[in-house]
C-alpha cells in the first residue's frame, strides 16, 4: 500500500503543479496590482446584479459608445439583463442603422430593430483613428475576457487616472493611468461625476459608474456565465454522487480479489 500511495501523491502533485504553472504562463511584465474590487459576478455562485448591469449599459450607451463599438451584441441581447421588450425596441429605434440596397439600388437609413447589431460609432478603423488622435478605441464586446483581471481591471482603469509621478515623461496627447500597462493611455479620463443620471437615483460617482460599466462589460463578454455556473453546480454534484456509487461498485467487484 505504501508503494501505491507514492505514485498517487505524485499524480496529485502533477495536477496541482499544472494548475499553478498555467497562470505563470501569462505574460509577467512590470507588476501592477489591481485593487480587490468586489463584483456580483465573483465566485462560483456569482450572478449579474441586474440593476447594476442596466446602469452599466446606460453608462456605455451615453459615454463609451461615442467612441467604442460593441460589434458582437445585438439589441435583442439586452432582454437578458432584464430590459422589457418595449425598452429593447425603444433602445434599438433610438439609432439610425444603414440598410439596403432598396428596390432602386440605393442604400438608406432606418430606425434600428432588436435584431440589429449595436451601431458602431465609426464607419471603419481609419475613421476611428482620425477622430481619436490616431488611437483606435478597441471594440468592447469581449474586452473583459481580453484583459487580465476582467471587470476588476476595467474598474481600476476607469478610476486609475492620476497626475504622472515626477520625472515620468508623457507622450503628446497621452494620459497617465496607474493600471494601464506602460501607464500611458490615449483615452482621456472618460468618466466625470454626475455625467449620467441614473433612473434609480444611484449617485453617479466615478467609482459607481466604473463599477457598473465594468459589470456590464463582464456580461457582454460572458453572457452565458449564469447559465454556465448553474449547469456546472448541478453537473459537479451529479458527478460527485455518481462517483461515490461507481467507487462503491468497484469495491464490491474487487472485494473477492483481496
Amino acid at each position, binding site marked *: 500500500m505504501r*508503494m*501505491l500511495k507514492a*505514485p*498517487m501523491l*505524485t*499524480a496529485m502533485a*502533477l*495536477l496541482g*503543479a*499544472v*494548475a499553478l*504553472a*498555467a*497562470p*505563470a*504562463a*501569462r*505574460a*509577467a*511584465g512590470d507588476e501592477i496590482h489591481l485593487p480587490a474590487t468586489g463584483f456580483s459576478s465573483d465566485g*462560483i455562485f456569482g450572478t449579474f446584479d441586474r440593476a447594476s448591469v442596466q446602469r452599466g449599459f446606460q453608462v456605455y450607451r451615453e459615454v463609451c459608445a461615442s467612441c467604442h463599438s460593441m*460589434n*458582437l451584441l445585438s439589441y435583442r*441581447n439586452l432582454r437578458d439583463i432584464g430590459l422589457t421588450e418595449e425598452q429593447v425596441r425603444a433602445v434599438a429605434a433610438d439609432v439610425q442603422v444603414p440598410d439596403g440596397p432598396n428596390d432602386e439600388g440605393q442604400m438608406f437609413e432606418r430606425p434600428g430593430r432588436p435584431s440589429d447589431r449595436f451601431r458602431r460609432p465609426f464607419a471603419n478603423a481609419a475613421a476611428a483613428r482620425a477622430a481619436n488622435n490616431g488611437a483606435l478605441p*478597441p*471594440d468592447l*464586446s*469581449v474586452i473583459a*475576457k*481580453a*484583459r*487580465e483581471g476582467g471587470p476588476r481591471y476595467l474598474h481600476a482603469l476607469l478610476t486609475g487616472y492620476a497626475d504622472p509621478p515626477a520625472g515620468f515623461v508623457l507622450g503628446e496627447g497621452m494620459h497617465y493611468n496607474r493600471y494601464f*500597462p506602460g501607464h500611458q493611455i490615449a483615452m482621456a479620463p472618460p468618466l466625470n461625476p454626475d455625467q449620467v443620471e441614473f433612473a434609480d437615483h444611484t449617485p453617479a460617482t466615478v467609482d459607481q459608474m466604473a463599477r457598473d460599466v465594468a459589470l456590464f462589460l463582464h456580461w457582454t*463578454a460572458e*453572457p*452565458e456565465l449564469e447559465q*454556465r*455556473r448553474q*449547469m*456546472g*453546480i448541478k*453537473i*459537479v454534484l451529479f*458527478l*460527485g454522487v*455518481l*462517483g461515490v456509487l*461507481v*467507487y462503491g*461498485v*468497484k469495491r464490491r*467487484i*474487487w472485494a473477492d*480479489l*483481496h
Partner: protein
Amino acid sequence: MSIGLHNSEFKNPVIRWVDSRLPLFTMMQKEYGTFPTPRNFNYFWNFGALAIVSLMIMILTGVFLSMNYTAHTGYAFDSVERIMRDVNYGWLLRYVHANGASMFFIVVYIHIWRGMYYGSYKAPRELLWMLGVVIFLLMMATAFMGYVLPWGQMSFWGATVITNLFSAFPLVGGHIVTWLWGGFSVDNPTLNRFFSLHYLLPFVIAGVVFLHIAALHVTGSNNPLGIDPKGPQDTIPFHPYYTSKDSVGLMVYFIVFAVLVFFVPNMLGHADNYIPANPMVTPTHIVPEWYFLPYYAILRAVPDKLGGVLLMFGSIALLFVLPWLDGSPVRSMRFRPLSRIAFLLFTVNFFVLLYVGGKPAEEPFVTISRFSTAYYFAYFLVILPLLGRIERPLPLPESIARAVLPRGGGPIRMAATAKPMEKA
C-alpha cells in the same frame, strides 16, 4: 463446423448470426472482456482509457464546432464568438473543446510519465511505445493548429513564431516557411490549411491509437512491478475488474474537466487571444499554450536559433530511442533506487521548464532554463545509459500474486489451483 463461418459462442441468435460472419463480438469479448490483465494495476493505469475518452470528446465537439466555424481571416474570430453566443449550447461545445485539449495533454503527460516510471517502453513494448510517441507528436501538431483557428492575437503570433522556426534551417528554411504559409506571411491560406489539417489529424491519431492498442494486446500490459505475469494467478479478466477501476478514474477526470469548463473556462488560456489577430501589433510576450511551455523553454535556452530548434525537436526525438538508451533489464523504477531519484528529479525539472517557458526571456529565467535543458538531455543521454550499467537493482518479487496478495499466503494457494499448462 461449417466452412467459412466463425464458430461463435454467443447465444443470442442475432448476435450469433452477425458474429459468425464478422466476429466483432468475439473480438471484443477476447480483447476487452476476458483479456488477461495483471492484477496489480494502480490508478496510473487509468490514463490510457482516459486518453481515448479525451480523443472521442475532442472529435465529437470538434465536428459540431466546425459546422458553425468560418475559416477566414475576416470572419474566424467573430464566428467563434457567434458560436459562444448564438449557437445553442455553443459556449459549452467550445469550452469543452478548448479545455478538452488541456485535459487531453494532462492525461497524456501522466500516461507518458507512467510509462517512463514503470519502464513500459522496454522490450517487448518498444514499438508500442514508439507508436505512443507518434500519437504525442500528432497531438502537438493538432493542438497547435487548433489554437490558431480562433484567430486571436496569440493564435496569429503563435503561428508566426512556430512556423518561423523552420526558417532556421540553412538554404531551404525560407522556402519551407513560405510553403507552410501558402504565401509570404501567416494569412488566409495559412488559416485555411490549418483548419483542414486540424480536422484531418485527429482521425490519423485515431488510426495510430488503434495500432497502439493492437500492439498492446500482443504484448499485454506492463504493471507497477514491471515483471511479467507468470500464470493465471497473476492476472484477472479486464472486465469487470478494470472496466470498473477505469470508471472510477473517469469520474475524477469528468469532475476536474467540469470544474474547468463551468467555473474557470479561460484559466488555462491567454487573455490576449480574445483580441482579434492584428499583424500590425505584436503582443508584449508571445507564449504558447501551457502544454508546449517546456519545449518552448528548451527552444529559448539556446542563444542560437538553429541550435534551439534542433534541441527542441531533439527533446522529443529522444523519446523514440528511449528503449535503447535505457539498458537496464529491470522495468519498474521501484526496484531501481538510483534511477528512481534521477527520474523524479527529471519530473521536477520538467515542471521547472514548464514554468520558465511561460516567463519572459530574461534573468534569472534564461539561466534556469539552460540548467533545466541540460538536465533534460543529460537524463536521457548520460544518466540512464550509465545507470543501466552500474546500478544494482533491488531483488524483484517472485511473482505479481506473491507480491501483492496479503501475507503471501494467497499466491501459493492460488498457484496450486492454476493448471500448469495454462502458464505462459
